[in-house]
């Protein structure tokens, strides 16, 4: 059992949880993830390790409540415990001094981006963080990223915070400025966003890494369910990734495979919302 030490809401349906997992806290490197089950019978959910404190033996997880199993995780209060936390899994991010680096995060992807930006900054890189969301309430970790970034740019689709529009517009401006143009771009967020970033950087030959989130079960290379096509080859995101060369990823295939269980997810969401809808209908 893994004790939950704190659980706070960062944005609608997005929680930051600190969990006691000493072995993982010690072994973990930025870019790696864990598989979590709140209890028996739940799905195995892959979650990026947002931060770790080896001295305290704790890891920080950012959890977006989408389906039944993620709802069970975020509903575990401080003092409660998660039955299974396994990791650290996946390849750590390759961290070195690249020079100027742009870290681009969309929505909950910003939580996956945060440990990478932190490690790149600590390695002496000049980090520009660009984060976006639908509206201001979906902008997360802005203070944390501002503290470690040379510059923080915020975009929202509705203009309620920062620049109105998408992260790609802010990135395009950055790239156009010779004083600020990045040597490396990291992009984490919805698949269309990562694809748009990769298409933006491709003509300029700027190395671009994306962190992929395909459907996963064991997280150890056993089932192959998380396979993605990179450079025409099948790769397992859980053991070969989750980061890949953004210019070589087959985004269309990734997006399509992500819809495999849509019917089940819709049914689960309906079941979870049923009571409330019933109340509205009857009220």
């Amino acid at each position: 059992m893994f004790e939950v030490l704190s659980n706070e809401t960062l944005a609608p349906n997005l929680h930051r949880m600190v969990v006691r997992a000493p072995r993982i806290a010690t072994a973990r490197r930025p870019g790696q993830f864990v598989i979590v089950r709140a209890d028996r019978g739940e799905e195995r959910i892959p979650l990026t390790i947002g931060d770790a404190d080896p001295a305290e033996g704790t890891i920080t997880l950012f959890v977006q409540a989408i389906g039944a199993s993620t709802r069970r995780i975020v509903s575990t209060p401080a003092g409660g415990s998660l039955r299974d936390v396994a990791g650290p899994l996946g390849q750590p991010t390759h961290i070195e001094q690249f020079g100027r680096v742009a870290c681009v995060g969309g929505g909950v992807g910003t939580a996956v981006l945060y440990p990478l930006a932190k490690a790149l900054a600590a390695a002496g890189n000049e980090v520009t963080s660009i984060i976006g969301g639908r509206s201001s309430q979906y902008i997360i970790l802005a203070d944390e990223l501002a503290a470690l970034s040379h510059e923080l740019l915020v975009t929202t689709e509705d203009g309620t915070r920062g620049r109105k529009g998408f992260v790609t517009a802010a990135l395009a401006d950055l790239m156009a400025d010779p004083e600020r143009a990045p040597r490396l771009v990291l992009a984490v967020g919805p698949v269309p966003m990562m694809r748009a970033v990769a298409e933006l950087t491709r003509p300029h030959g700027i190395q671009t890494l994306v962190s992929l989130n395909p459907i996963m079960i064991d997280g150890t290379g056993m089932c192959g369910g998380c396979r993605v096509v990179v450079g025409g080859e099948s790769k397992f995101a859980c053991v070969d990734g989750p980061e890949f060369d953004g210019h070589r990823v087959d985004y269309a295939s990734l997006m399509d495979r992500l819809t495999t269980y849509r019917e089940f997810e819709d049914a689960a969401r309906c079941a979870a919302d049923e009571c409330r809808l019933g109340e509205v209908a009857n009220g």
Partner: protein
Amino acid sequence: MANDLAMKERLAIPRVHMPELDATERSRNFAEVNRGLEMTDAVREAQRCIQCKHRPCVDGCPVGVSIPEVLDALAAEDLPLAARILRGDNALPAVCGRVCPQETQCEAKCVRGVKGDAVAIGYLERFVADWAMANPDRLGQADRPAASDRTVAVVGAGPAGLTAAGELARAGHRVTVFEALHDTGGVLRYGIPEFRLPKEIIDSEVEQLAALGVAIDCNVIIGKTLTLDQLRAEFDAVFIANGAGLPMMLDLKGENLKGVYSANELLTRVNLMEAGRNPAATTPVIAGKSVAVIGGGNTAMDCVRTARRLGAQRAMIVYRRSEAEMPARVEEIKHAKEEGVEFVMLTAPLEIIGNESGWVAALRCRRMELGPPDDSGRRKPVPVEGSEFDLPADVVVNAIGTRANPLLTATAPDLDLNTWGNIVVDDAGATSLPGVFAGGDMVRGGATVILAMGDGKRAAAAINRALAG
């Protein structure tokens, strides 16, 4: 005593039949197919054993169970004695009695099989093991040797690891089993379906080990959570049995369409995560109406019979050789046929065809014919020109095999591996690193449960010798 039967009487007894669930009924549920023998039938079958002096059946058993002694005790209706002997030799008898290929092992060597039918050793092993599970209070307390204060780490809670853990704990060592998944059993739990091996059997066998003092630490991935070097520093010996859990890809066009599963993914979803067989399960599975399973081994049979139970109207085995060359057990093939599985033989897959929404629509195949034998001694399949055809399918399962998972070995550069990434060991199971032993599929590539258990037993004996020395 009942086992004082004259030879003539023993020879006159016909081989027992295993009671099975009705094929139509069972092809739609996950209940265990083989129901187990009744006491009188089991005793009578045990009396068929002629107790020959040279005990060839024992040589045929990879873990060397004292089969004639177990059968003699059973024939005399002394179940506690039979159970004690069996459990002393085999850490997982209720598992072996169900999934071992006895027809190529102990029963293949049975003298009774020379003229007639071999004694049904597998059925009797299962009977004695199940009796022991149901009657723990009648077994008596097994003698526990004095604690040795030596510690052993076992990597993987599958058949090899659990067997080694039992042997080492019985020798008095303090054993910790590290398991990457959230539950024990390895391939026994994620790979073998409920209708062949009910999960409660695994739970019960693991409880036996816990009662011997074995500590089981789930959610620990050696090579990730802890390294082999950390285990070597912390324990007096290490036994690596982390399996061959990496699916081989078909490398066919269309392999990433929705509805294409590796055998491991389909089986893990249904067996470990209970998708499609427990209404409360939260993990989904795509239940095809027309399912094509590529491969001819036991895993392929498990997949196709699972697909049938998930509701497939057509569940097909697509295999490039003929039925005679299939590596699957005869019993699995028989059960699959009874359950309505179609065998599409001498057929090789060429491409998986998708529909406009990215789902599998068909498996494009080509007919094969058998040519001269290849390296494996089996006749090599050769394509028949112009024989391409499409099998309509909405789910395609790749059951062509697995290979070594590099998670552990990638972080242990000093460990000698072969070309395929399997750990190299000597006859005793020792690796190139002092104090580190290995066995099971991580050494052999994809093999059977009982061979993995044999490795566990052999390595445990070597570890016992090393720790005593």
